[in-house]
């Protein structure tokens, strides 16, 4: 019993739990105010978007956890979209070729970022700021703004299909999250990545080749951005060069709310999952409960603020409780000592 309570307490301290709490509370609230919030279509819908956001967030998380940032996630996604679209429409590529082509583009873009960051020793923020302009230009340059509408047959299966009422994409992302969890929990390279982000200097002194871990992180980031890009194409049924324009902000929002420490060195697969649902749910719920259209963003901001405050507030409360208890014990003790002193 005691250990169960302790376990609960430790759980409550974790940021994921407070975000989960926020998700549950909001879910209740929205479903009270809108009968259709929990309709099967809406759940399908929510979870598909959440899955996309998780891929986007993973792309960001990979670099955050080695202590960097990637401002170019969205445009890497955009390049993947254009590459796969171009291959299918203009070269008649099949699904496999288009997917591989898209992923290769993402990996190369990540590799470029990683190489510049490590070899020229420039801050990742600055590098990816510059490359995001670069990639964006390539996207508009190649596509001239036009979408590629001729896809390989069956390309939309992933993005539009469902199983047991839930989208394929959700299953895919759960698989990927499991792989990520394994990677960072149980493989040497995963631990090296985490160590690099935890303390670069210490990692170097522990014989870790931090340049290569940083490059690997950036390649992974490119890879996940590419996966997100391919998912978008599959969802949209066409390859839209505008894809990715708003990914950067959401990639950070989901990563950070999901418990990826901005200082690096930490990742939580479960946290990412919950955080993506939080954000997607807020945006969806506000529409469903018919919130004032002009102030929608204000509510979104407020709810986000409260959600991220929860863990700091709960920490504060638990510290206060601890102190109270200590004071009570202290008082008891002095009360016990009194008679002794008199004796």
């Amino acid at each position, binding site marked *: 019993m005691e250990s169960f309570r302790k376990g609960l307490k430790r759980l409550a301290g974790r940021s994921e739990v407070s975000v989960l709490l926020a998700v549950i509370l909001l879910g209740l609230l929205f479903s009270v105010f*809108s009968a*259709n*919030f929990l*309709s099967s*279509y*809406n759940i399908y*819908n929510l979870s598909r*978007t959440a899955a996309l956001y998780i891929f986007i967030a993973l792309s960001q998380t990979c670099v955050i956890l080695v202590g960097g940032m990637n401002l170019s996630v969205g445009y890497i996604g955009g390049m993947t979209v254009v590459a796969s679209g171009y291959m299918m429409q203009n070269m008649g590529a099949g699904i496999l070729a288009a997917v591989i082509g898209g992923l290769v583009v993402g990996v190369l873009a990540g590799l470029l970022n990683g190489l510049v960051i490590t070899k020229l020793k420039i801050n990742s923020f600055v590098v990816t700021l510059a490359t995001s302009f670069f990639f964006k230009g390539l996207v*508009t340059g190649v596509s*001239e*703004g*036009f*979408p590629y*509408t001729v896809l390989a047959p069956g390309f939309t299966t992933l993005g*539009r299909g469902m199983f047991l009422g839930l989208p394929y994409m959700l299953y895919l992302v759960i698989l990927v999250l499991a792989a990520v969890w394994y990677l960072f929990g149980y493989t040497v390279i995963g631990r090296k990545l985490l160590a690099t982000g935890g303390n670069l200097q210490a990692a170097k002194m522990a014989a870790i080749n931090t340049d290569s871990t940083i490059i690997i992180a950036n390649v992974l980031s490119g890879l996940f951005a590419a996966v997100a890009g391919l998912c978008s194409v599959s*969802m*949209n*049924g*066409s390859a*839209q*060069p*505008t*894809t990715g*324009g*708003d990914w950067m902000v959401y990639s950070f929002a989901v990563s950070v709310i999901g418990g990826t420490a901005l200082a690096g060195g930490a990742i939580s697969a479960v946290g990412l999952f919950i955080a993506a649902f939080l954000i*997607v749910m807020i*945006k*969806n719920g506000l*529409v*469903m409960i*018919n919130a004032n*259209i*002009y102030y*929608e*963003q204000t509510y*979104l901001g407020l709810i986000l603020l409260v959600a991220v405050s929860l863990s700091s507030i709960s920490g504060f409360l638990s510290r206060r409780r601890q102190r109270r208890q200590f004071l009570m014990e202290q008082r008891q003790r002095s009360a016990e000592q009194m008679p002794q002193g008199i004796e």
Partner: protein
Amino acid sequence: AEALYAWYFPTAHPYGEEVKSFAEVFMEKEGVEIKFLMGSDWNQSTQDANMRALVADGYMNITTFPASDGAAGLYDELKSFGVNVVGFGGATSQQTELFCIATDVEAAAYAAAGYAIEAMGGKGGILNVLEVLSDTNTLKRKAGVEACIKDHEGVELVQQVADITSIAEGVEKISAALTSNIGKIQGVVCTGNQASSAAVQVLDDYFARNPDAEKIYLVCIDTPDDVMQGIEKGVVYGTIAQNTYAHGFVPMLILKKLNEGYSKVDGTYFIDSGTVLVTKDNMTTFKDDLMKVTEQILADLEVKYLKK
């Protein structure tokens, strides 16, 4: 169940507001309840999420403006759920909405360039100001302007600028292009809303500084306050007014008719809402001209586009 109607626009925007006001006219006239919604950001994913939320909430009749060409995927998917989507203001290249009531942008751009060339006296150089590159309409506008210039001997396309996402950016780029081609540009064609406001500002400033400079004829799009003031001042030669009344009113009417048992005539899709050049002369009366086009569309509706 009773049919639920919704109207969606990507973000708070003067053009959207104007269209919305005419949809409200419809609401009053026909006694139909409409849910109005605007996105927080002008991007496709927000539109996707919000319109899907509308559908989840039971709104099966939606009229909307595409945030990008990617809206086609959304419309297509919603159609498979039985949602009626009618577009206004811009068409998607895949034409996945039932109808689109909009300005024929290529024709409008061609016309705008034509007006500028006419004012220039049939010769000289033109600066073509495009707006958002990721918008497929941009390429159509570019084609329209280029075609018109090709059709006029003695007129040259001096430079094109594009990728303008705010007025400030427009001001920077337009003034840079003007400066690098002083004396070579006699006409400016703007086919985007922000670009127009920016061009008005740049030329206003330019002529205030150089009152004796050679005249530059500017043709804009839309009729916001600054452009209209520009026309009055003589900075703007003219502007292409779009038929916002039709954009607001007609889609709602079509949706209502579809629910009353009408269906779409095969092969129909685009409904040209027409444009009018607004100059100093017709500043107060141009709306009547547009209204005539609207009336024609309304008259054609049950003849050309819908059948029982």
